[in-house]
């Protein structure tokens, strides 16, 4: 576990920074006598895409709701767009977008009406740099709902409804966007389009995006950085590639010999394979070499956190998991 950035290591004071969109330090949350968050630390810069991963009940929703200003924290220093979310005013609110899962609102409205109406609230907050709101027709095209603009919202399919939610989330051209499991219910094509949209928002508009998902493949595709929240703490923080590489540094090698299956994990695949082939030559068949994926890293880290085993066991756990 020595190779993963520990949250405690980032405790040095951050300099005040315009580009620091999210700055969370020692965020704690307690419901009654139950601690849900034990000191969450992370930051996000302008234009960064962060994926917040973690098992159900780990505190993802609580964390996001604190950042959205929808829930008061118990303790900790939190700055969202430079403002304490517990005291954020409407001007602050106008700079962010929120996309949640369980919205079923405005069912009797037409798609275009909803976007035009909700967009109107953002017009006074337009600046020279950011023109608000996003023009409705342009926005409908962007989320792929142009063909359904005149439909009533309650006649949309599940995937179309989610795209409308995303459209509402970005109608104010937010500097910061929260996405809660945005692609649940999307077909593969819609998912691909949505991923393109996220990239466009982050790259062209410099929107900072914090998304939660259970889809590790999606996290790997979208996120510049992945945060794993488990047991009320950030247990890992890094690029998808770095996480996979650092946590489970071992490579898994599978082969068969004389009809028998073998699995071996090693940090030095090259040396192991050289020895293996020298010894058994053509007897080695169906050879597979597989580097750990983000999913392996995630499973190992979460397992380690939940079982309370610490220090260097991640690799071993990974190995057992693969063999089992």
């Amino acid at each position: 576990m020595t190779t993963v950035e520990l949250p405690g290591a980032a405790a040095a004071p951050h300099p005040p920074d315009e580009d620091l969109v999210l700055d969370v330090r020692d965020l704690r949350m307690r419901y009654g006598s139950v601690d849900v968050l034990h000191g969450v630390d992370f930051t996000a810069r302008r234009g960064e895409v962060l994926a917040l991963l973690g098992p159900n009940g780990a505190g993802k929703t609580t964390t996001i709701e604190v950042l959205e200003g929808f829930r008061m924290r118990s303790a900790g220093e939190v700055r969202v767009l430079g403002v304490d979310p517990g005291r954020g005013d409407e001007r602050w609110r106008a700079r962010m977008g929120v996309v949640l899962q369980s919205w079923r609102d405005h069912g009797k409205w037409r798609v275009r009406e909803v976007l035009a109406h909700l967009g109107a609230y953002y017009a006074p907050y337009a600046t020279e740099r950011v023109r608000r709101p996003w023009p409705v027709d342009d926005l409908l095209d962007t989320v792929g709902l142009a063909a359904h603009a005149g439909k009533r919202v309650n006649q949309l399919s599940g995937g179309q409804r989610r795209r409308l939610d995303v459209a509402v989330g970005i109608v104010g051209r937010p500097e910061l966007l929260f996405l809660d499991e945005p692609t649940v219910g999307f077909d593969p094509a819609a998912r691909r389009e949505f991923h393109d949209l996220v990239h466009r928002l982050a790259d062209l508009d410099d929107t900072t995006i914090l998304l939660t998902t259970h889809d590790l493949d999606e996290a790997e595709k979208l996120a510049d950085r992945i945060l794993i929240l488990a047991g009320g703490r950030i247990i890992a923080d890094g690029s998808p590639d770095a996480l996979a590489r650092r946590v489970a540094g071992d490579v898994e090698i599978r082969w068969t010999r004389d009809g028998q299956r073998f699995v071996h994990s090693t940090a030095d695949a090259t040396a192991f394979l050289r020895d293996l082939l020298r010894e058994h030559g053509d007897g080695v068949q169906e050879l597979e070499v597989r580097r750990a994926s983000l999913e392996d890293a995630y499973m190992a880290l979460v397992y380690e956190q939940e079982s309370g085993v610490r220090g260097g066991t991640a690799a071993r756990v990974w190995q057992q998991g693969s063999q089992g």
Partner: protein
Amino acid sequence: MNPTRAAVRAGVRRGVIELRNSFTNAQDVWGYVFPTVVLLVTIFFMRGATVPGTGFSLGSRTLPSVLGMGIAFGGLITLAQQIVVEREDGTLLRAKATPNGMLGYLIGKLTLMSTVALVSMVIQIVPALFLVEGLRLTSVMAWMTLLVVVVIGLVATLPIGAVIGSLIENPRNLGLVMLPMMGLIALSGIFYPINGYPGWLQAVAQVFPIYWLGLGMRSALLPDALAAVELGGSWRHLETLGVLGAWAVLGLVLAPIVLRRMARRESGSRVAARRERAMRQIT
């Protein structure tokens, strides 16, 4: 543009859009028509009956009383219902996630409820006029009084309705408000004068706005001679103003506090939890 003004303007437009939407789906249209059907059937069965102590048609007395009841019902129950439902489906959370969205939401609701009250009244009055007679329909004073009663009635009931809606989290608990409301309607002399009731029951009825809205509407549309058979033998305009005014003050003081508290507690996980509960109840 000033953000508050933008939100107020958006709120009014919101009310207009919701009003228009309410004419285009069967459920809402039935909501407009149903009270009229009940009213017409009631008046039909009252034919020949007279207000006790007079030769005046009981059906003609019922029409203005029912209009008054409609104001109270719309302000208290319909608004509460909408708030409860729109908390559940996430409309309120959406408003909260939008800059000045809560202000726009409330303005929208006030616009909607006021216009719905007026539309409902017209829908009830017009067909009923073919069945009743003796109302002061040509008097300008009558219509002015009616308008004043409608406005005061809305101010007295809408904030209380918003409070009720904010306090109920589960739509199923709306029944807790419906039942006492039905009892109050029976007490409030809408369909029959309450002169014969025991004094304490009359006193209870006169605490609540329904009685006074019925009385106010009767004072507007009935001939002055009918005042003699009301409690106290007069239209009691001052008392009407006093009681409705007291409810208005109470509502306007309570509503911002309760609404703010309710809005502060709204979050994605609460909406999700309600949705899950609703799903469980369906299955």
